[in-house]
């Protein structure tokens, strides 16, 4: 028994060392640096009291949440469609959809500017049609567009894999009981895809919260937290504030994901 315990501890050791070295210690260090500035621990309080920080935290969460929702809707619809309808070029289309995975955020930002910037396609078309140029690349809407663009490849494969596992007999059973296609979607397909939506959505949300390159490229009017951290760190040399913001960004993201996962889990338990 004793021997067994010792063996287990020994086996856990590598994981423990990696966890401590690359997660626990840096997080602890980050936390203490956050409290080491001119204002001390008040740096953490400032995140909630200073409207610059609070607004950027809230808009970061909002844009990440909106990105996640839009991405899941788009990936859900196209993922199920691509899984169920095999047509010539299907495989090519799926691999094209995962293409943007390789792009750095800067390239995505550049593409958003080409589409919705001052010289962009949307601007030219709207000018020709209405005489007024529609430009939104440098706003939060442009950022949202870029984030959705790079989130789709991160979620669509997960959704497709889950769609493949859906039992078509379940849908037939629901229909035989009188369910309309809409009810089948609500009662069978979405519950069946829910685990995939949760895991893909979590990755999508966390990536959108932390994305920097796209925001940096579009910077002008956007005030998301990674940008604020960058500004504090490099321009203001306010390392303590940057650390405090980083720590809080990590904690809040983790909390949001934990709550989402628990809510989803408990609703599954309550329904089942």
């Amino acid at each position, binding site marked *: 028994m004793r021997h067994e315990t010792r063996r287990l501890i020994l086996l856990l050791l590598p994981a423990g060392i990696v966890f401590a070295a690359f997660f626990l210690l840096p997080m602890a260090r980050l936390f203490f640096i956050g409290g080491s500035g001119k204002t001390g621990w008040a740096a953490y309080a400032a995140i909630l009291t200073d409207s610059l920080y609070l607004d950027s935290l809230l808009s970061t969460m909002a844009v990440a949440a909106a990105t996640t929702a839009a991405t899941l809707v788009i990936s859900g619809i196209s993922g199920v469609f691509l899984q169920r309808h095999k047509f010539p070029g299907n495989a090519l289309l799926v691999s094209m959809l995962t293409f943007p995975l390789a792009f750095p955020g800067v390239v995505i930002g550049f593409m958003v500017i080409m589409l919705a910037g001052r010289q962009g396609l949307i601007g030219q078309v709207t000018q020709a049609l209405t005489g007024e140029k529609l430009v939104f690349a440098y706003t939060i809407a442009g950022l949202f567009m870029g984030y959705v663009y790079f989130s789709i490849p991160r979620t669509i494969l997960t959704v497709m894999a889950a769609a493949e596992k859906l039992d078509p007999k*379940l849908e*037939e*059973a629901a229909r035989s*009981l*009188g369910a309309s296609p809409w009810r089948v979607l609500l009662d069978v397909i979405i519950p069946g895809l829910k685990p995939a939506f949760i895991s893909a959505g979590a990755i999508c949300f966390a990536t959108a919260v932390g994305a920097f390159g796209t925001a940096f490229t579009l910077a002008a009017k956007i005030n998301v937290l990674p940008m604020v951290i960058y500004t504090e760190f490099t321009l203001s040399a306010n390392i303590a504030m940057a650390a405090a913001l980083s720590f809080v960004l990590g904690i809040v993201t983790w909390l949001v994901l934990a709550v989402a996962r628990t809510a989803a889990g408990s609703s599954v338990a309550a329904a089942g």
Partner: protein
Amino acid sequence: MTDAGNKPVSIALTNCSKTFPDGTRALEPLDLAIHAGETVVFLGPSGCGKTTTLRIIAGLEEPDAGGKVLFDGTDVTHLPIEQRNVGMVFQSYALFPNMTVAGNIGYGLKIRKVPGAQIKARVSEMLAMMQITRLADRRIDQLSGGQRQRVALARAIAVRPRALLLDEPLTALDAKLRDTLRLEIDSLLRSLGITAIYVTHDQAEAMALGDRIVVMEHGRVAQIGKPRDIYQRPATRFVAEFIGTMNRLTGSMNNGRFICKAGGIAWPEAPANATEILFRPEDIRVVEGDETTGLQGKVAAAFFLGDRTRLFVDVGEAQPLVIESTARRDFSHGDPVGLAIDPRGLLVL
């Protein structure tokens, strides 16, 4: 029963064929009339078109152009399944994993916007009928196969469907449970008086449950008839050999006797050109004592089953004859046995 609300429906298929997009012909043009309240079993090996026919009746597939499906004379060919009011039971149960047992059974009623109290009453009635009341709040993954199929049956019946369609409902269960549930399904169908269509590849299930059996082969109907007719008067060799066990002897007719390698059989009413005769194991017996017949064989294998012995007797043909003997005798390999065949059981196909 409580299902007086919906009268059983008669179902007619006219000229229904089915060709899949890849060009496979799953079903040759088929005409079939199913009476109200009748249990019809579609029987055949896999790929014979039985499930396709069921899916056309259900509304999950549309027949090729020119085919028609009629419920009580009304054309429902283009009516999707959700508007046909048919109950379906699948081999894989197809229960909703995100709902409890009660949630599954009440689902169809919820879709029909039946008031909550009525759903509750109907669900408890169904639970009691299938003897699964104590499982009401269980999750589906906590149920055994037999329990799942009971829930699936209750769910299909709860909405008082016009017809009940069962697609190999017992195939996934073990043999003992299959027998129990077969009995339950039989008494359920009788008590509901519902029009039921039952698809299976198991001839014992078909014989036990069907008012009529439709034997199918390669997308065509091989024979339609009552279980007894199909067993005793099979229309084709395929039917004869698919249902039950069939013995075969080859030879020729000579003077009112069929002569084969093992001897001769007196058969006055034989067709003159018979070169092959077929008969069931119950129409042949091992003679006892000094009785002599013109037919001799040697025991190739004997399996003592308790109430009887199943004998495989070598008579010089490609296949040994199968004989069920109730004799209190210990057969062993190589024993010579005299055989007697009841000429009333002889078939030529």
